[in-house]
């Protein structure tokens, strides 16, 4: 089918999934113990006051009406309120997304910068010590809990070597954060020429990015290696060599380019790893992002943030997978036949 039809087809498939996602996130909070009206009214409120708030929040209506209110609220970008910050969840999100975004981007950079070359070299120099080491890293890396990696890195680089900063957030306690343009400290500090903030932000980004990057590196390396090997064995590469093209150029030119295409499919998987990793890494390093926000909301059973976080992650996940499908469909027309 043509690409346009393919896009439409994929979008139509996504719709019921998104619907199911809203159902699940609504149900989760519906099932949460505790009465949100009571939390909002405060423990000393009169029963009448609590009842009034219940009416206001629509908690006295039947479940399908509540679900409808929830859906329409979503369309109005009303994600509810957080009882620990007293603010609309949307505002909390806006404040915290940049921190998570910065960490995620830095981790992806680390993972790609180390993982891809490692996978390529591993495939090219198959069965050497490097290959074995990298495969061990891959297999071992998947088995290491990311909170453990983070804590070990912290012990070695902070406590033993004194090279990393204490795990207290995005910037040193005595440095003014840069003026907020994007919310990403590194970018903002660079754009405003704020040297101290730039260095401090990079310094604090080091260990969390390494931890999360390492968690994501393993599947990436494995896939790059696997596809690279497949391509190196392929007829067309062998033909290229037979035709006399320089070995290096073939490997690092066409072969690599073709090997990276299937890596796109990994993006969906990587995103899943990243979101899970973010939650844990942000806790270890006290990083004030979405993951940390989600955990404190989950522990205090703060309904609005929990619901919105779960929904947000699911929607992002669906969108990432959709994008992957579309990109792949664009790159490889055979896929569209399915």
């Amino acid at each position, binding site marked *: 089918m043509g690409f346009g039809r393919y896009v439409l087809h994929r979008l139509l498939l996504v719709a019921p999934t998104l619907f199911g996602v809203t159902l699940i996130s609504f149900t989760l909070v519906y099932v949460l113990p505790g009465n949100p009206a009571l939390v909002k009214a405060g423990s000393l409120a009169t029963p009448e006051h609590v009842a009034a708030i219940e009416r206001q929040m629509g908690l006295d209506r039947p479940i399908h009406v509540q679900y409808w209110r929830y859906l329409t609220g979503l369309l109005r970008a009303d994600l509810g309120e957080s*009882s620990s910050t*007293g603010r609309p969840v949307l505002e909390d999100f806006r404040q915290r997304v940049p921190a998570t975004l910065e960490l995620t981007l830095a981790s992806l950079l680390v993972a790609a910068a180390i993982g891809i070359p490692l996978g390529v070299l591993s495939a090219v120099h198959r069965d050497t010590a490097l290959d074995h080491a990298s495969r061990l890293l891959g297999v071992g890396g998947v088995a290491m809990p990311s909170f453990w990696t983070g804590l070990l890195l912290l012990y070695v680089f902070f406590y033993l070597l004194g090279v990393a900063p204490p795990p207290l957030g995005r910037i040193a306690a005595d*440095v*003014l954060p840069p003026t907020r343009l994007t919310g990403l400290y590194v970018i903002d500090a660079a754009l405003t020429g704020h040297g101290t903030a730039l260095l401090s932000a990079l*310094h604090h980004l080091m260990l969390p990015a390494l931890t999360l990057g390492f968690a994501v590196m393993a599947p990436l390396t494995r896939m790059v290696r696997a596809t690279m090997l497949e391509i190196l064995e392929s007829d067309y590469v062998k033909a290229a060599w037979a035709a006399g093209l320089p070995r290096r150029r073939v490997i690092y030119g066409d072969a690599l380019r073709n090997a990276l295409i299937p890596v796109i499919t990994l993006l969906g998987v990587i995103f899943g790893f990243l979101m899970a990793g973010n939650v844990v890494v942000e806790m270890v390093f006290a990083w004030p992002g979405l993951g940390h926000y989600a955990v404190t909301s989950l522990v205090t059973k703060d309904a609005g943030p929990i619901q919105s976080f779960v929904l947000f992650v699911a929607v992002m996940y669906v969108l990432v997978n959709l994008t992957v499908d579309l990109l792949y469909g664009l790159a490889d027309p055979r896929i569209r036949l399915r």
Partner: protein
Amino acid sequence: MSPRMDRRSFLKGTVGVAAIGAAGVRPRRSQAQDKRTLVVAWDTDIDTLDPAHFKAIGGYVTVANCYDTLIGWKVRPIKDKPGFFRSQPAEWDPMIAESWSTERDGATLVFKIRKGATFPSGRPVTAHAAKYCFDRGLQSPGYMRLVIPSLIQVKSPDQFEVRDDYTFAIKMDAPSPMALDVVTLSNNAIIDPEEAKARATKDDPWAGEWLKRNVAGVGPYHLVKNEPGVEVVLESTKGYWRPEPYFSRIVLKFVPNEADRVLLLKKKAIDMVVGRPGLSPKNVKSLEGEQGLRVFQVPDTTCHWLCMNGSKPPFDNTLVRQAVNYAIPIQAILPNVLFGYGTQMKSPVPHVTPGHSGTLSPYKHDLEKAKALMKEGGVKGTIPVDLAVRVGYTTHEAASVWIQRELEKIGFKVNIVRETDATFRQLAIKGGHGLSLESFQSWVNDPWYHLVFNFHTKSKFTNASFYSNPILDKLIDESMHETNSEKRLGAALVAQKILIDDAVWGFLWYDSWTRVMKADLSGIEKRWDTFERYYAAKRT
């Protein structure tokens, strides 16, 4: 090599260099930290700024520094603790009210509002503002709505009187010894009525939604930045009616892990740690000898007890409750859990509260006596029971383990259940706890304030033991407003005897309030509500 490979290794190289460079360079201190900025670490957020409501610590500390009340608790220096101050009972300083007097034998309080105090909007503070705040306290949803009628016997807004622009009177039904303390509570902060009225709506006539997020009062500081999970910044207010404070800027940094707070103190990267408690006793102890830091501790009114639900078996049986009191290993808890920062609880009334008696309690750790009482109480077999503890309350979590072991020796099977603050409170109110570890601090340092909230049958939300004794209720009702000091304190002794004999609480300890800070700080004040007010703080 192909350019692609070069680019990649170049990128790797730069990232590596940058990382090493960042690691080696220590960021210069920017002007964020200088002598006149106080940097404090806490682990709380501002959930609401509405004075009338219960709040998280973050909210209370901010309100305490940004809102003045009519009068404030006076503080006096503490002997051999230079630089530290604490309140004594029944002593007040003028704040918004420059003087006060009484009429009708103390049943009416008259406050003279000072001239020259202005709200941030520029409008002067007048008696009308005072009336608005008390009207609001009485009528808007919040904590004051319950406290004002029961404690100072004001049932209608007509009893709050504006005599002239600078004279405000409260006409109570009868004199109340707790009245001035109640007026001092930060919940009765003076709000700018024009600002609030401008934001009132039909559904929200007291501007609750707006006051939740905004400060509209007179205070030495105002809120400049509130970034939940990161930091709160206060700056001194220009044109405040008192001289400018030493610290022109207070930065309250959110540091959720206690280990990190300790680290920051050791590295002198912050001035102080605040919270309830902010630092666990073990960490306070470990910082005692630290160079450049000072530990401040003072006995406090916060009570911690093993709460037994008296409304259902097995704790509806007095003998069982007494047995529990003989099983509590308080002599092990004080050194191992509190590291000495606490005092054994000998009475339901705190030891620094007037009327406290430490000699009425016979309870001590005596397992044989405990077992005998259980037998006498008719207990057969092992009783399974859940002990609910709040997550994050390190002393409670540690104490629960000690208590569990002892209780299991006298015939209980104890299962420790950890609950979040919100869940814990909701279950407690519904009577869903059998055993739990509770704490309470009375901000009005008066025995009857303490007794009414904890033990009166009608105190549904705070009487966590569900204790109901008509004799005690009558005693409380009579003595709450008793103006004769001898009778008042005498009756308190009677009440304590009743409660101790009935073993209503599993008596544990009273906290010592502790703060660890840089050695160059002084002017730290401990008032009855324990929330830090930084106006008088300075560096020596």
